[in-house]
């Protein structure tokens, strides 16, 4: 009953959650959910349009087939594995690193802060896709390298936001209370600062997840990301490009997958942010009573 109410009042958010659940579960339970074997090649069935029945009549290629006659839907489900795991792992890495650095800089200020923020500024001035391209060109493309490169090009955002939040949080009276009780710096950071930073950082991470997934798609599209026979949505678009005129679905379907997934992630992040801002606003502060 309560769920029905939530769905009704948050239609867009509910649809987004449903899409994400679908994407995530197809990545995890690929072998159970995929209608066909994503690696099964059948050259006779190459580049069939969406809705073509399969050769043995056991099913339908709802999204068509690719140049090697593999079922496109199953391929997209396979691609979601890489796209999601690259995104999630690199967001966790960059988020942890950036939050840690921002926390230290904002809490201790002084020289540490100046040095760290200079590095952030420096790296912010280099477009992250360009940096990723260069590094991957030198290191060579592989799953791990893509993850690391994406993490290293994105940590500054977390560092900057965390530092800003920490600078204002550290002046709060409850932090001073903790110090008055005898808390160590470590305790203050773990028990008070991080829990208060969690919500905004989580929102940031969700928004960043969408960006990272797009970047991975671009890298794979350019041939510097995931390598065949493994696949990701970006790589699928790249491979389908050759047949764009005759078989539009090869590009369009993985494109939709990227679009809807990142859009859903964005919508959920925005909703979550609005929700946390509201609960913070309820913290009204009574103005000081001035004496006459």
């Amino acid at each position, binding site marked *: 009953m309560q769920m029905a109410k939530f769905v009704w009042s948050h239609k867009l958010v509910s649809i987004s959650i449903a899409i994400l659940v679908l994407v995530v579960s197809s990545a995890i339970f690929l072998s159970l959910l995929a209608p066909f074997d994503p690696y099964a090649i059948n050259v006779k069935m190459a580049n069939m349009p969406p809705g073509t029945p399969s050769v043995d009549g056991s099913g339908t290629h709802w999204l068509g087939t690719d140049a090697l006659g593999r079922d496109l839907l199953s391929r997209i489900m396979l691609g979601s594995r890489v796209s999601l795991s690259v995104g999630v792992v690199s967001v966790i890495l960059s988020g942890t690193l950036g939050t840690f650095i921002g926390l230290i800089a904002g809490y201790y200020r002084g020289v540490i802060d100046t040095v760290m923020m200079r590095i952030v500024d420096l790296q912010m001035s280099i477009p992250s896709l360009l940096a990723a391209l260069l590094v991957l060109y030198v290191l060579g493309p592989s799953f791990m390298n893509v993850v690391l490169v994406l993490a290293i090009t994105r940590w500054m955002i977390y560092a900057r936001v965390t530092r800003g939040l920490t600078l204002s949080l550290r002046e709060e009276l409850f932090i001073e209370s903790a110090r008055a009780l005898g808390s160590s710096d470590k305790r203050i950071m773990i*028990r008070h600062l991080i*829990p208060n930073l969690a919500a905004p950082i989580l929102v940031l991470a969700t928004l960043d997840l969408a960006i990272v997934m797009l970047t991975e798609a671009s890298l794979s599209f350019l041939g510097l990301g995931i390598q065949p026979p493994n696949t990701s949505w970006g790589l699928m678009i790249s491979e389908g490009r050759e047949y764009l005129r005759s078989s539009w679905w090869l590009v369009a379907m993985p494109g939709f997958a990227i679009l809807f997934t990142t859009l859903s992630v964005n919508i959920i992040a925005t909703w979550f942010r609005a929700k946390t801002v509201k609960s913070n606003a309820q913290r009204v502060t009574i103005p000081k009573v001035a004496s006459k």
Partner: protein
Amino acid sequence: MQPILDVENLVKEFPFKGDKKNGVPRAIDDISFQVFEGEALGLVGESGSGKSTTARCILHLLKPTSGKVSFQGSNVLEMNKNELKSFRKDAQIVFQDPYSSLDPRMKVGDIIGEGIEIHNPKISKQELRNEVIEMMELVGLRPDHFNRYPRAFSGGERQRIGIARALAVKPKLLICDEPVASLDVSIQAQILNLLQKMKEELGLTILFIAHDLATVRHLCTRIAVMESGKIREIGDRSQIYENPQHPYTQSLIAIVPEPDPISERARLVERKLSKLKEQP
């Protein structure tokens, strides 16, 4: 009698860039006073007179520009990490603002238990819980509030949480920084009675900060009057009320509302009698 707290020539300047010509403004300008074991000393002054800054310097939450703070004979400002930690078990503070002084992401039980956990990290969960509940009952909070977040509480309840948090570590000295300034009059009385009770039952020494004399009247036996960073006058309650020396104290007396006309008359009579006595 040995003072539990001895403040000597305390100065705090908040320097800001530029404007060096006029000298740095002093939030606290060379103050000295003592607090004796088991007493309640009132520190009264208008907004901006430096009361909170004094409290922060005493607890070494702020580093004073110069001066000395001794707690039970040892210099607070020269303590090492461990000494400072055990000092913070002995001297506690209830902050002015009951809203921003509680971590919004922590449950009330954890807030009150934090100090106990810091000073006794090996305590078992059950024991900790028992001690916290004992504190909650002591200050008049319901034990079933244990798992609630601070935003679910009113200002008066929050101030009780702040008091419970400070008392949980069993301090010898409690600094109360205008703990009732933002509360309703009836709630003010409740909190003041609570502090009076704690003082009697636990033998607590209290430094009570307020911006008017009415608040400290019942709780504090001695009163220090502060104005623009200086202590203008310090003395027994009766002396401050009946025979204020400094014009600033007199102006503070003038704005004390008299809730009880009978005691007001009694005071007038008393004052006249004492004047008669002074005359030969």
